[in-house]
Protein backbone atom coordinates (compact mmCIF):
# COMPACT_ATOMS: atom_id res chain seq x y z
CA UNK A 1 0.00 0.00 0.00
CA UNK A 2 1.43 3.36 -0.96
CA UNK A 3 0.34 6.32 1.03
CA UNK A 4 1.13 9.76 -0.27
CA UNK A 5 2.67 10.34 3.10
CA UNK A 6 3.65 13.69 4.46
CA UNK A 7 7.27 12.83 5.15
CA UNK A 8 8.65 15.06 7.80
CA UNK A 9 12.08 16.56 7.50
CA UNK A 10 13.38 16.03 10.97
CA UNK A 11 16.26 18.34 11.46
CA UNK A 12 17.66 19.29 14.84
CA UNK A 13 14.92 19.77 17.47
CA UNK A 14 13.37 23.23 17.46
CA UNK A 15 14.41 25.11 20.62
CA UNK A 16 11.27 26.10 22.50
CA UNK A 17 11.86 28.89 25.02
CA UNK A 18 8.98 31.08 26.20
CA UNK A 19 10.12 33.93 23.96
CA UNK A 20 10.65 31.56 21.05
CA UNK A 21 7.20 30.11 21.63
CA UNK A 22 5.59 33.55 21.47
CA UNK A 23 7.39 34.30 18.21
CA UNK A 24 6.35 30.97 16.69
CA UNK A 25 2.73 31.50 17.65
CA UNK A 26 2.71 34.92 16.01
CA UNK A 27 3.96 33.38 12.80
CA UNK A 28 1.66 30.36 13.00
CA UNK A 29 -1.98 31.45 13.25
CA UNK A 30 -3.24 27.85 13.02
CA UNK A 31 -1.38 26.86 16.18
CA UNK A 32 -2.78 29.96 17.88
CA UNK A 33 -6.40 29.38 16.80
CA UNK A 34 -6.37 25.62 17.35
CA UNK A 35 -4.42 25.74 20.59
CA UNK A 36 -6.40 28.71 21.90
CA UNK A 37 -9.74 27.07 21.14
CA UNK A 38 -8.61 23.83 22.74
CA UNK A 39 -7.34 25.63 25.87
CA UNK A 40 -10.67 27.48 26.12
CA UNK A 41 -12.58 24.18 25.85
CA UNK A 42 -10.40 22.55 28.51
CA UNK A 43 -10.90 25.50 30.88
CA UNK A 44 -14.68 25.54 30.25
CA UNK A 45 -14.84 21.79 30.86
CA UNK A 46 -12.73 21.86 34.02
CA UNK A 47 -14.69 24.77 35.49
CA UNK A 48 -18.06 23.17 34.63
CA UNK A 49 -19.24 22.58 38.25
CA UNK A 50 -18.75 26.30 38.99
CA UNK A 51 -21.24 27.64 36.47
CA UNK A 52 -22.97 25.05 34.29
CA UNK A 53 -25.64 23.81 36.68
CA UNK A 54 -26.78 20.26 37.29
CA UNK A 55 -26.43 17.92 34.29
CA UNK A 56 -28.36 14.95 35.75
CA UNK A 57 -31.28 16.60 37.59
CA UNK A 58 -34.54 15.58 35.89
CA UNK A 59 -37.61 17.81 35.92
CA UNK A 60 -40.73 16.13 34.49
CA UNK A 61 -42.49 19.51 34.16
CA UNK A 62 -39.79 20.94 31.91
CA UNK A 63 -39.52 18.31 29.18
CA UNK A 64 -38.27 19.35 25.72
CA UNK A 65 -38.46 23.09 26.50
CA UNK A 66 -37.06 25.41 23.81
CA UNK A 67 -33.94 27.46 24.63
CA UNK A 68 -34.60 30.22 27.18
CA UNK A 69 -32.70 32.58 29.50
CA UNK A 70 -32.78 29.99 32.27
CA UNK A 71 -31.81 27.04 30.06
CA UNK A 72 -29.69 28.34 27.19
CA UNK A 73 -30.00 25.22 25.04
CA UNK A 74 -33.45 24.13 26.32
CA UNK A 75 -34.13 20.80 28.00
CA UNK A 76 -34.18 17.19 26.83
CA UNK A 77 -36.91 14.54 26.95
CA UNK A 78 -36.30 13.90 30.66
CA UNK A 79 -36.30 17.61 31.52
CA UNK A 80 -32.52 17.83 31.96
CA UNK A 81 -30.64 21.04 31.16
CA UNK A 82 -28.99 20.54 27.74
CA UNK A 83 -26.47 23.36 28.32
CA UNK A 84 -25.22 21.76 31.56
CA UNK A 85 -25.06 18.34 29.92
CA UNK A 86 -23.16 19.69 26.91
CA UNK A 87 -20.57 21.40 29.13
CA UNK A 88 -20.17 18.31 31.31
CA UNK A 89 -20.02 16.19 28.13
CA UNK A 90 -16.89 18.12 27.12
CA UNK A 91 -15.10 16.67 30.16
CA UNK A 92 -15.61 13.07 29.10
CA UNK A 93 -14.85 13.73 25.41
CA UNK A 94 -11.61 15.56 26.17
CA UNK A 95 -10.60 13.06 28.86
CA UNK A 96 -11.14 10.01 26.66
CA UNK A 97 -9.67 11.73 23.57
CA UNK A 98 -6.49 12.95 25.28
CA UNK A 99 -5.87 9.76 27.28
CA UNK A 100 -6.42 7.51 24.23
CA UNK A 101 -4.09 9.67 22.17
CA UNK A 102 -1.48 9.58 24.95
CA UNK A 103 -1.73 5.77 25.21
CA UNK A 104 -1.47 5.33 21.44
CA UNK A 105 1.47 7.77 21.25
CA UNK A 106 3.46 6.08 24.02
CA UNK A 107 2.73 2.55 22.74
CA UNK A 108 3.49 3.60 19.16
CA UNK A 109 6.72 5.32 20.24
CA UNK A 110 8.00 2.26 22.12
CA UNK A 111 7.01 -0.20 19.37
CA UNK A 112 8.31 2.08 16.61
CA UNK A 113 11.72 2.61 18.26
CA UNK A 114 12.21 -1.07 19.00
CA UNK A 115 11.09 -2.01 15.47
CA UNK A 116 13.45 0.59 14.00
CA UNK A 117 16.39 -0.85 15.90
CA UNK A 118 15.84 -4.60 16.05
CA UNK A 119 15.31 -6.42 12.79
CA UNK A 120 13.81 -9.59 14.31
CA UNK A 121 11.36 -7.57 16.40
CA UNK A 122 10.59 -5.48 13.33
CA UNK A 123 9.58 -8.45 11.19
CA UNK A 124 7.11 -9.86 13.69
CA UNK A 125 5.64 -6.73 15.21
CA UNK A 126 5.18 -4.76 12.01
CA UNK A 127 3.24 -7.68 10.49
CA UNK A 128 0.96 -7.58 13.56
CA UNK A 129 0.59 -3.82 13.03
CA UNK A 130 -0.33 -4.42 9.35
CA UNK A 131 -3.03 -6.83 10.49
CA UNK A 132 -4.38 -4.38 13.09
CA UNK A 133 -4.42 -1.59 10.52
CA UNK A 134 -6.62 -3.54 8.16
CA UNK A 135 -9.37 -3.94 10.79
CA UNK A 136 -11.78 -0.98 10.65
CA UNK A 137 -11.30 1.18 13.79
CA UNK A 138 -14.91 1.28 14.94
CA UNK A 139 -15.50 -2.44 14.43
CA UNK A 140 -12.34 -3.32 16.35
CA UNK A 141 -13.39 -1.10 19.24
CA UNK A 142 -16.93 -2.55 19.16
CA UNK A 143 -15.57 -6.11 19.29
CA UNK A 144 -13.23 -5.32 22.21
CA UNK A 145 -15.95 -3.61 24.23
CA UNK A 146 -18.65 -6.19 23.49
CA UNK A 147 -16.36 -8.88 24.91
CA UNK A 148 -15.37 -7.05 28.09
CA UNK A 149 -18.41 -4.93 28.88
CA UNK A 150 -18.60 -1.12 28.97
CA UNK A 151 -16.39 1.16 31.08
CA UNK A 152 -14.22 4.24 30.65
CA UNK A 153 -10.93 2.34 31.05
CA UNK A 154 -11.70 -0.30 28.44
CA UNK A 155 -13.08 2.42 26.16
CA UNK A 156 -9.74 4.26 26.23
CA UNK A 157 -7.84 1.04 25.50
CA UNK A 158 -10.28 0.06 22.74
CA UNK A 159 -9.82 3.44 21.03
CA UNK A 160 -6.03 3.50 21.52
CA UNK A 161 -5.32 0.02 20.08
CA UNK A 162 -6.53 0.70 16.51
CA UNK A 163 -4.65 4.05 16.50
CA UNK A 164 -1.31 2.61 17.61
CA UNK A 165 -0.10 1.04 14.31
CA UNK A 166 -0.05 4.35 12.43
CA UNK A 167 2.07 5.96 15.17
CA UNK A 168 4.41 2.96 15.31
CA UNK A 169 4.94 3.04 11.54
CA UNK A 170 5.72 6.74 11.54
CA UNK A 171 8.17 6.51 14.47
CA UNK A 172 9.84 3.49 12.88
CA UNK A 173 10.38 5.35 9.60
CA UNK A 174 11.95 8.30 11.44
CA UNK A 175 14.20 5.96 13.46
CA UNK A 176 15.33 4.14 10.32
CA UNK A 177 16.52 7.40 8.78
CA UNK A 178 18.04 8.86 11.96
CA UNK A 179 19.98 5.78 13.04
CA UNK A 180 22.35 6.19 10.09
CA UNK A 181 23.18 9.82 10.90
CA UNK A 182 26.80 10.56 11.86
CA UNK A 183 25.99 11.89 15.33
CA UNK A 184 24.37 8.59 16.29
CA UNK A 185 27.39 6.70 14.99
CA UNK A 186 29.66 9.09 16.84
CA UNK A 187 27.79 8.57 20.11
CA UNK A 188 28.04 4.79 19.73
CA UNK A 189 31.73 4.97 18.85
CA UNK A 190 32.27 7.23 21.85
CA UNK A 191 31.16 4.33 24.05
CA UNK A 192 27.58 5.37 24.85
CA UNK A 193 25.29 2.43 25.58
CA UNK A 194 22.42 1.73 23.18
CA UNK A 195 19.57 2.58 25.63
CA UNK A 196 21.23 5.92 26.32
CA UNK A 197 21.67 6.63 22.60
CA UNK A 198 18.03 5.76 21.96
CA UNK A 199 16.87 8.06 24.75
CA UNK A 200 19.24 10.99 24.13
CA UNK A 201 19.52 10.99 20.35
CA UNK A 202 16.78 8.93 18.73
CA UNK A 203 13.70 9.77 20.84
CA UNK A 204 14.09 13.58 20.56
CA UNK A 205 14.26 13.40 16.77
CA UNK A 206 10.94 11.57 16.63
CA UNK A 207 9.16 14.21 18.74
CA UNK A 208 8.09 16.62 15.94
CA UNK A 209 6.53 13.86 13.85
CA UNK A 210 5.04 12.30 16.97
CA UNK A 211 3.40 15.57 18.03
CA UNK A 212 1.76 16.06 14.63
CA UNK A 213 0.59 12.46 14.55
CA UNK A 214 -0.71 12.68 18.13
CA UNK A 215 -2.96 15.59 17.17
CA UNK A 216 -4.44 13.51 14.32
CA UNK A 217 -4.87 10.54 16.66
CA UNK A 218 -6.51 12.75 19.29
CA UNK A 219 -9.03 14.15 16.78
CA UNK A 220 -9.83 10.68 15.59
CA UNK A 221 -10.10 9.37 19.17
CA UNK A 222 -12.60 12.08 20.13
CA UNK A 223 -14.70 11.19 17.07
CA UNK A 224 -14.49 7.45 17.80
CA UNK A 225 -15.54 7.97 21.43
CA UNK A 226 -18.57 9.98 20.30
CA UNK A 227 -19.41 7.40 17.63
CA UNK A 228 -19.17 4.50 20.09
CA UNK A 229 -21.28 6.34 22.68
CA UNK A 230 -23.78 7.14 19.92
CA UNK A 231 -23.98 3.44 19.05
CA UNK A 232 -24.43 2.56 22.74
CA UNK A 233 -21.08 0.87 23.44
CA UNK A 234 -19.09 3.85 24.68
CA UNK A 235 -19.49 5.90 27.82
CA UNK A 236 -22.15 4.42 30.18
CA UNK A 237 -25.48 6.25 29.70
CA UNK A 238 -25.60 7.73 33.21
CA UNK A 239 -22.54 9.90 32.44
CA UNK A 240 -23.42 12.76 30.04
CA UNK A 241 -21.29 12.57 26.90
CA UNK A 242 -21.88 14.15 23.49
CA UNK A 243 -22.33 10.79 21.78
CA UNK A 244 -24.97 9.41 24.11
CA UNK A 245 -26.74 12.80 24.31
CA UNK A 246 -27.21 12.70 20.53
CA UNK A 247 -28.24 9.07 20.73
CA UNK A 248 -30.92 9.64 23.38
CA UNK A 249 -32.28 12.84 21.78
CA UNK A 250 -32.35 11.69 18.15
CA UNK A 251 -36.07 10.80 18.27
CA UNK A 252 -36.88 14.38 19.31
CA UNK A 253 -34.93 16.04 16.49
CA UNK A 254 -38.05 17.57 14.93
CA UNK A 255 -39.45 18.96 18.24
CA UNK A 256 -36.24 20.01 20.01
CA UNK A 257 -33.38 20.23 17.49
CA UNK A 258 -31.05 21.88 20.01
CA UNK A 259 -30.87 18.63 22.02
CA UNK A 260 -29.03 17.08 19.05
CA UNK A 261 -27.32 20.15 17.56
CA UNK A 262 -25.71 21.49 20.76
CA UNK A 263 -23.60 18.39 21.47
CA UNK A 264 -23.06 17.89 17.72
CA UNK A 265 -21.67 21.39 17.18
CA UNK A 266 -19.46 21.16 20.29
CA UNK A 267 -18.09 17.86 19.06
CA UNK A 268 -17.31 19.32 15.64
CA UNK A 269 -15.67 22.45 17.12
CA UNK A 270 -13.49 20.35 19.43
CA UNK A 271 -12.30 18.08 16.62
CA UNK A 272 -11.73 21.13 14.41
CA UNK A 273 -9.58 22.76 17.11
CA UNK A 274 -7.42 19.65 17.45
CA UNK A 275 -7.09 19.30 13.67
CA UNK A 276 -6.09 22.97 13.27
CA UNK A 277 -3.48 22.56 15.99
CA UNK A 278 -2.14 19.47 14.19
CA UNK A 279 -2.01 21.28 10.82
CA UNK A 280 -0.29 24.24 12.46
CA UNK A 281 2.31 22.01 14.12
CA UNK A 282 3.01 20.28 10.80
CA UNK A 283 3.58 23.62 9.06
CA UNK A 284 5.84 24.62 11.94
CA UNK A 285 8.02 21.52 11.74
CA UNK A 286 7.90 21.06 7.97
CA UNK A 287 7.67 24.38 6.11
CA UNK A 288 8.27 22.53 2.84
CA UNK A 289 4.93 20.72 3.12
CA UNK A 290 3.08 23.98 3.59
CA UNK A 291 4.22 25.36 0.28
CA UNK A 292 3.01 22.25 -1.48
CA UNK A 293 -0.33 22.00 0.24
Amino acid at each position, binding site marked *: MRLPSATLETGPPVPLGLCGLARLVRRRPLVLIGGGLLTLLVVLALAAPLYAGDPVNMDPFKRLHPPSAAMWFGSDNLGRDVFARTIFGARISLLVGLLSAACAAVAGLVIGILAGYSRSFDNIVMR*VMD*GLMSIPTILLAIALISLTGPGIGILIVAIAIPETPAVARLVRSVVLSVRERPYVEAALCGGARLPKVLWRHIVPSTIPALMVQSATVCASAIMTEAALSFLGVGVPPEIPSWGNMISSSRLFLSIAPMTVFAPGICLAVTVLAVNLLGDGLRDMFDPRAKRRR
Partner: protein
Amino acid sequence: MAAYILRRMLSAIAVMAMVGIFVFLLLRLAPGDPADILAGDTATEEMVAGIRASLGLNDPLPVQFVYWVRHMLGGDFGISIFSGRPVLELISQRLEPTLSLSILTMILAVTVGVSFGILAAWRTGGLIDRLLVVFSALGYSVPVFVIGFFLIYFFAIRTHWLPVQGYKPFESGLGPWFVHLILPTVTLSLAYIAFIARVTRASMLEVLSEDYMRTAAAKGASSYAMLFHHALKNAGVPILTVIGISFAYLIGGVVLTETVFNIPGIGRLVVDAINNRDYPIIQSVLILASGMYVLINLTVDLAYTLIDPRIRY
Protein backbone atom coordinates in the same frame (compact mmCIF):
# COMPACT_ATOMS: atom_id res chain seq x y z
CA MET B 1 6.29 -8.91 -12.76
CA ALA B 2 4.87 -12.37 -11.96
CA ALA B 3 7.22 -12.52 -8.99
CA TYR B 4 5.94 -9.16 -7.76
CA ILE B 5 2.30 -10.22 -8.04
CA LEU B 6 3.06 -13.44 -6.19
CA ARG B 7 4.95 -11.61 -3.44
CA ARG B 8 2.19 -9.05 -3.06
CA MET B 9 -0.46 -11.77 -2.81
CA LEU B 10 1.57 -13.68 -0.23
CA SER B 11 1.86 -10.58 1.91
CA ALA B 12 -1.91 -10.03 1.63
CA ILE B 13 -2.45 -13.59 2.88
CA ALA B 14 0.01 -12.95 5.72
CA VAL B 15 -1.93 -9.84 6.77
CA MET B 16 -5.21 -11.78 6.69
CA ALA B 17 -3.60 -14.50 8.82
CA MET B 18 -2.64 -11.81 11.36
CA VAL B 19 -6.22 -10.53 11.40
CA GLY B 20 -7.43 -14.11 11.88
CA ILE B 21 -5.06 -14.78 14.79
CA PHE B 22 -6.01 -11.49 16.39
CA VAL B 23 -9.78 -12.05 16.15
CA PHE B 24 -9.36 -15.65 17.29
CA LEU B 25 -7.34 -14.67 20.35
CA LEU B 26 -9.70 -11.80 21.17
CA LEU B 27 -12.51 -14.19 22.10
CA ARG B 28 -10.24 -16.78 23.75
CA LEU B 29 -8.35 -14.29 25.90
CA ALA B 30 -11.36 -12.17 26.88
CA PRO B 31 -12.37 -12.42 30.54
CA GLY B 32 -14.93 -15.17 30.95
CA ASP B 33 -15.57 -18.47 29.20
CA PRO B 34 -15.76 -18.20 25.36
CA ALA B 35 -18.56 -20.77 25.27
CA ASP B 36 -20.59 -18.64 27.72
CA ILE B 37 -20.06 -15.55 25.55
CA LEU B 38 -21.04 -17.38 22.37
CA ALA B 39 -24.08 -19.01 23.98
CA GLY B 40 -25.48 -15.73 25.27
CA ASP B 41 -27.13 -14.86 28.57
CA THR B 42 -30.16 -17.13 28.31
CA ALA B 43 -28.34 -20.36 27.43
CA THR B 44 -28.71 -23.57 29.45
CA GLU B 45 -25.79 -25.67 30.71
CA GLU B 46 -26.31 -28.19 27.90
CA MET B 47 -26.18 -25.50 25.20
CA VAL B 48 -22.90 -24.15 26.62
CA ALA B 49 -21.49 -27.68 26.73
CA GLY B 50 -22.66 -28.27 23.15
CA ILE B 51 -20.92 -25.12 21.93
CA ARG B 52 -17.78 -26.05 23.84
CA ALA B 53 -17.74 -29.45 22.14
CA SER B 54 -18.55 -28.15 18.64
CA LEU B 55 -15.76 -25.54 18.78
CA GLY B 56 -13.38 -27.97 20.42
CA LEU B 57 -12.72 -25.50 23.23
CA ASN B 58 -11.15 -28.28 25.31
CA ASP B 59 -8.40 -28.75 22.67
CA PRO B 60 -5.14 -26.79 22.78
CA LEU B 61 -5.27 -23.32 21.17
CA PRO B 62 -3.39 -24.15 17.91
CA VAL B 63 -5.77 -27.06 17.22
CA GLN B 64 -8.76 -24.79 17.90
CA PHE B 65 -7.33 -22.21 15.52
CA VAL B 66 -7.01 -24.73 12.68
CA TYR B 67 -10.63 -25.85 13.23
CA TRP B 68 -11.81 -22.27 13.33
CA VAL B 69 -10.04 -21.29 10.10
CA ARG B 70 -11.20 -24.44 8.34
CA HIS B 71 -14.82 -23.69 9.27
CA MET B 72 -14.58 -20.15 7.93
CA LEU B 73 -12.88 -21.13 4.70
CA GLY B 74 -15.77 -23.55 4.22
CA GLY B 75 -18.20 -20.63 4.57
CA ASP B 76 -19.29 -21.52 8.11
CA PHE B 77 -19.11 -18.31 10.14
CA GLY B 78 -21.10 -19.66 13.08
CA ILE B 79 -24.64 -19.33 14.38
CA SER B 80 -26.21 -16.09 15.57
CA ILE B 81 -27.04 -16.26 19.29
CA PHE B 82 -30.13 -14.12 19.00
CA SER B 83 -31.88 -15.58 15.95
CA GLY B 84 -30.26 -19.01 15.84
CA ARG B 85 -29.64 -18.67 12.08
CA PRO B 86 -26.29 -18.96 10.27
CA VAL B 87 -24.40 -15.65 10.40
CA LEU B 88 -23.51 -15.73 6.70
CA GLU B 89 -27.21 -15.98 5.79
CA LEU B 90 -28.05 -12.95 7.97
CA ILE B 91 -25.21 -10.97 6.41
CA SER B 92 -26.22 -11.80 2.83
CA GLN B 93 -29.82 -10.69 3.57
CA ARG B 94 -28.48 -7.28 4.62
CA LEU B 95 -26.06 -6.89 1.74
CA GLU B 96 -28.25 -4.95 -0.72
CA PRO B 97 -28.81 -1.73 1.29
CA THR B 98 -25.16 -1.58 2.36
CA LEU B 99 -23.85 -2.17 -1.16
CA SER B 100 -26.26 0.42 -2.61
CA LEU B 101 -25.13 3.02 -0.07
CA SER B 102 -21.43 2.22 -0.49
CA ILE B 103 -21.42 2.25 -4.28
CA LEU B 104 -23.44 5.48 -4.59
CA THR B 105 -21.17 7.08 -1.98
CA MET B 106 -18.01 6.13 -3.84
CA ILE B 107 -19.41 7.34 -7.19
CA LEU B 108 -20.30 10.71 -5.65
CA ALA B 109 -17.06 10.99 -3.64
CA VAL B 110 -14.78 10.14 -6.57
CA THR B 111 -16.45 12.35 -9.18
CA VAL B 112 -16.85 15.38 -6.91
CA GLY B 113 -13.59 14.85 -5.01
CA VAL B 114 -11.37 14.45 -8.08
CA SER B 115 -12.97 17.38 -9.97
CA PHE B 116 -12.79 19.58 -6.86
CA GLY B 117 -9.10 18.72 -6.43
CA ILE B 118 -8.26 19.37 -10.09
CA LEU B 119 -10.03 22.74 -10.11
CA ALA B 120 -8.30 23.75 -6.86
CA ALA B 121 -4.88 22.83 -8.27
CA TRP B 122 -5.60 24.60 -11.56
CA ARG B 123 -5.93 28.00 -9.89
CA THR B 124 -3.93 27.76 -6.69
CA GLY B 125 -5.05 30.37 -4.17
CA GLY B 126 -8.21 31.05 -6.17
CA LEU B 127 -11.78 30.93 -4.92
CA ILE B 128 -12.21 27.16 -5.43
CA ASP B 129 -8.88 26.48 -3.75
CA ARG B 130 -9.83 28.52 -0.69
CA LEU B 131 -13.26 26.86 -0.68
CA LEU B 132 -11.52 23.49 -0.56
CA VAL B 133 -9.49 24.51 2.51
CA VAL B 134 -12.69 25.38 4.41
CA PHE B 135 -14.57 22.37 3.07
CA SER B 136 -11.87 19.89 3.96
CA ALA B 137 -11.43 21.34 7.46
CA LEU B 138 -15.17 20.74 7.98
CA GLY B 139 -15.14 17.36 6.24
CA TYR B 140 -12.37 16.12 8.53
CA SER B 141 -13.91 17.55 11.70
CA VAL B 142 -17.68 17.05 11.62
CA PRO B 143 -18.54 13.44 12.50
CA VAL B 144 -20.70 11.62 9.99
CA PHE B 145 -23.69 11.18 12.33
CA VAL B 146 -23.74 14.90 13.15
CA ILE B 147 -23.77 15.73 9.42
CA GLY B 148 -26.60 13.21 9.03
CA PHE B 149 -28.83 14.83 11.65
CA PHE B 150 -28.20 18.32 10.24
CA LEU B 151 -29.15 17.17 6.73
CA ILE B 152 -32.25 15.35 8.03
CA TYR B 153 -33.34 18.43 9.94
CA PHE B 154 -32.93 20.91 7.09
CA PHE B 155 -33.79 18.79 4.03
CA ALA B 156 -36.40 16.42 5.43
CA ILE B 157 -38.04 17.77 8.60
CA ARG B 158 -38.11 21.49 7.77
CA THR B 159 -38.59 21.40 3.99
CA HIS B 160 -40.09 17.92 3.39
CA TRP B 161 -38.00 17.65 0.21
CA LEU B 162 -36.66 14.20 1.03
CA PRO B 163 -37.72 11.26 3.21
CA VAL B 164 -36.48 11.44 6.82
CA GLN B 165 -35.35 7.86 7.21
CA GLY B 166 -35.75 4.34 5.89
CA TYR B 167 -34.83 2.34 2.83
CA LYS B 168 -36.76 1.09 -0.20
CA PRO B 169 -35.35 -2.02 -1.89
CA PHE B 170 -34.16 -1.76 -5.48
CA GLU B 171 -36.98 -3.97 -6.77
CA SER B 172 -39.63 -1.51 -5.50
CA GLY B 173 -38.47 0.88 -8.23
CA LEU B 174 -35.47 3.00 -9.10
CA GLY B 175 -37.16 6.26 -8.01
CA PRO B 176 -38.05 5.43 -4.39
CA TRP B 177 -34.76 3.55 -3.96
CA PHE B 178 -32.75 6.55 -5.12
CA VAL B 179 -34.77 9.17 -3.21
CA HIS B 180 -34.25 7.29 0.07
CA LEU B 181 -30.52 7.05 -0.54
CA ILE B 182 -29.81 10.73 -1.41
CA LEU B 183 -29.34 12.03 2.15
CA PRO B 184 -27.39 8.98 3.43
CA THR B 185 -25.10 9.13 0.39
CA VAL B 186 -24.37 12.85 0.77
CA THR B 187 -23.84 12.38 4.52
CA LEU B 188 -21.35 9.57 4.12
CA SER B 189 -19.49 11.02 1.14
CA LEU B 190 -18.60 14.49 2.53
CA ALA B 191 -15.56 13.26 4.47
CA TYR B 192 -14.35 11.21 1.51
CA ILE B 193 -14.83 14.12 -0.90
CA ALA B 194 -12.57 16.21 1.35
CA PHE B 195 -9.98 13.42 1.59
CA ILE B 196 -9.91 12.62 -2.15
CA ALA B 197 -9.95 16.30 -3.17
CA ARG B 198 -6.99 17.15 -0.94
CA VAL B 199 -4.85 14.30 -2.23
CA THR B 200 -5.86 15.03 -5.85
CA ARG B 201 -4.88 18.67 -5.40
CA ALA B 202 -1.51 17.84 -3.84
CA SER B 203 -0.75 15.22 -6.48
CA MET B 204 -1.77 17.51 -9.35
CA LEU B 205 0.31 20.40 -8.00
CA GLU B 206 3.37 18.17 -7.94
CA VAL B 207 2.85 17.20 -11.59
CA LEU B 208 1.95 20.72 -12.74
CA SER B 209 5.40 21.96 -11.68
CA GLU B 210 7.15 19.41 -13.92
CA ASP B 211 9.12 20.55 -16.96
CA TYR B 212 6.90 18.70 -19.42
CA MET B 213 3.91 20.73 -18.25
CA ARG B 214 5.75 23.93 -19.17
CA THR B 215 6.56 22.34 -22.52
CA ALA B 216 2.91 21.46 -23.05
CA ALA B 217 1.92 25.05 -22.24
CA ALA B 218 4.61 26.38 -24.57
CA LYS B 219 3.42 24.35 -27.52
CA GLY B 220 -0.03 25.81 -26.96
CA ALA B 221 -2.00 23.00 -25.31
CA SER B 222 -5.39 24.12 -23.98
CA SER B 223 -6.02 24.18 -20.21
CA TYR B 224 -8.33 21.22 -20.65
CA ALA B 225 -5.74 19.13 -22.48
CA MET B 226 -3.04 20.10 -19.99
CA LEU B 227 -5.11 19.20 -16.95
CA PHE B 228 -6.74 16.02 -18.18
CA HIS B 229 -4.34 14.56 -20.75
CA HIS B 230 -0.96 15.54 -19.35
CA ALA B 231 -1.42 16.12 -15.62
CA LEU B 232 -4.21 13.85 -14.39
CA LYS B 233 -2.69 10.72 -15.92
CA ASN B 234 0.63 11.34 -14.23
CA ALA B 235 -1.03 12.26 -10.93
CA GLY B 236 -3.11 9.10 -10.98
CA VAL B 237 -1.28 6.76 -8.62
CA PRO B 238 -1.80 8.61 -5.31
CA ILE B 239 -5.40 9.38 -6.32
CA LEU B 240 -6.09 5.72 -7.00
CA THR B 241 -4.50 4.85 -3.66
CA VAL B 242 -6.75 7.14 -1.63
CA ILE B 243 -9.80 5.91 -3.51
CA GLY B 244 -8.84 2.37 -2.52
CA ILE B 245 -8.28 3.39 1.10
CA SER B 246 -11.58 5.31 1.19
CA PHE B 247 -13.49 2.33 -0.13
CA ALA B 248 -11.87 0.09 2.43
CA TYR B 249 -12.59 2.47 5.32
CA LEU B 250 -16.22 2.90 4.29
CA ILE B 251 -17.60 0.25 6.67
CA GLY B 252 -17.09 2.35 9.83
CA GLY B 253 -19.05 5.21 8.29
CA VAL B 254 -21.67 2.79 7.00
CA VAL B 255 -22.40 1.54 10.54
CA LEU B 256 -23.05 5.12 11.71
CA THR B 257 -24.95 6.29 8.61
CA GLU B 258 -27.24 3.26 8.64
CA THR B 259 -27.99 3.91 12.31
CA VAL B 260 -28.83 7.57 11.68
CA PHE B 261 -31.05 6.84 8.65
CA ASN B 262 -32.49 3.57 9.92
CA ILE B 263 -31.30 1.59 6.91
CA PRO B 264 -31.54 -2.19 7.41
CA GLY B 265 -28.02 -3.02 6.20
CA ILE B 266 -24.93 -4.68 7.63
CA GLY B 267 -24.26 -1.68 9.85
CA ARG B 268 -27.64 -2.07 11.54
CA LEU B 269 -26.93 -5.79 11.87
CA VAL B 270 -23.77 -4.96 13.83
CA VAL B 271 -25.56 -2.42 16.04
CA ASP B 272 -28.38 -4.88 16.78
CA ALA B 273 -25.73 -7.50 17.50
CA ILE B 274 -24.15 -5.16 20.09
CA ASN B 275 -27.50 -4.76 21.86
CA ASN B 276 -28.21 -8.52 21.78
CA ARG B 277 -24.61 -9.36 22.78
CA ASP B 278 -24.47 -11.47 19.61
CA TYR B 279 -20.69 -11.90 19.30
CA PRO B 280 -20.60 -14.32 16.31
CA ILE B 281 -22.08 -11.59 14.08
CA ILE B 282 -19.59 -8.93 15.24
CA GLN B 283 -16.68 -11.32 14.73
CA SER B 284 -17.82 -12.30 11.22
CA VAL B 285 -18.37 -8.71 10.04
CA LEU B 286 -14.95 -7.82 11.47
CA ILE B 287 -13.25 -10.55 9.44
CA LEU B 288 -15.21 -9.90 6.24
CA ALA B 289 -14.59 -6.12 6.45
CA SER B 290 -10.86 -6.65 6.98
CA GLY B 291 -10.84 -9.11 4.10
CA MET B 292 -12.42 -6.47 1.86
CA TYR B 293 -9.80 -3.95 2.97
CA VAL B 294 -6.91 -6.30 2.17
CA LEU B 295 -8.46 -7.34 -1.15
CA ILE B 296 -9.09 -3.77 -2.30
CA ASN B 297 -5.57 -2.66 -1.38
CA LEU B 298 -4.14 -5.65 -3.22
CA THR B 299 -6.19 -4.76 -6.31
CA VAL B 300 -5.07 -1.13 -6.13
CA ASP B 301 -1.42 -2.13 -5.80
CA LEU B 302 -1.68 -4.41 -8.80
CA ALA B 303 -3.59 -1.77 -10.77
CA TYR B 304 -0.67 0.68 -10.57
CA THR B 305 1.09 -1.14 -13.37
CA LEU B 306 -2.00 -0.81 -15.57
CA ILE B 307 -2.52 2.93 -15.15
CA ASP B 308 1.15 3.90 -14.97
CA PRO B 309 3.44 2.17 -17.47
CA ARG B 310 6.47 3.75 -15.76
CA ILE B 311 5.98 1.38 -12.82
CA ARG B 312 7.67 -1.93 -13.51
CA TYR B 313 8.47 -4.48 -10.90
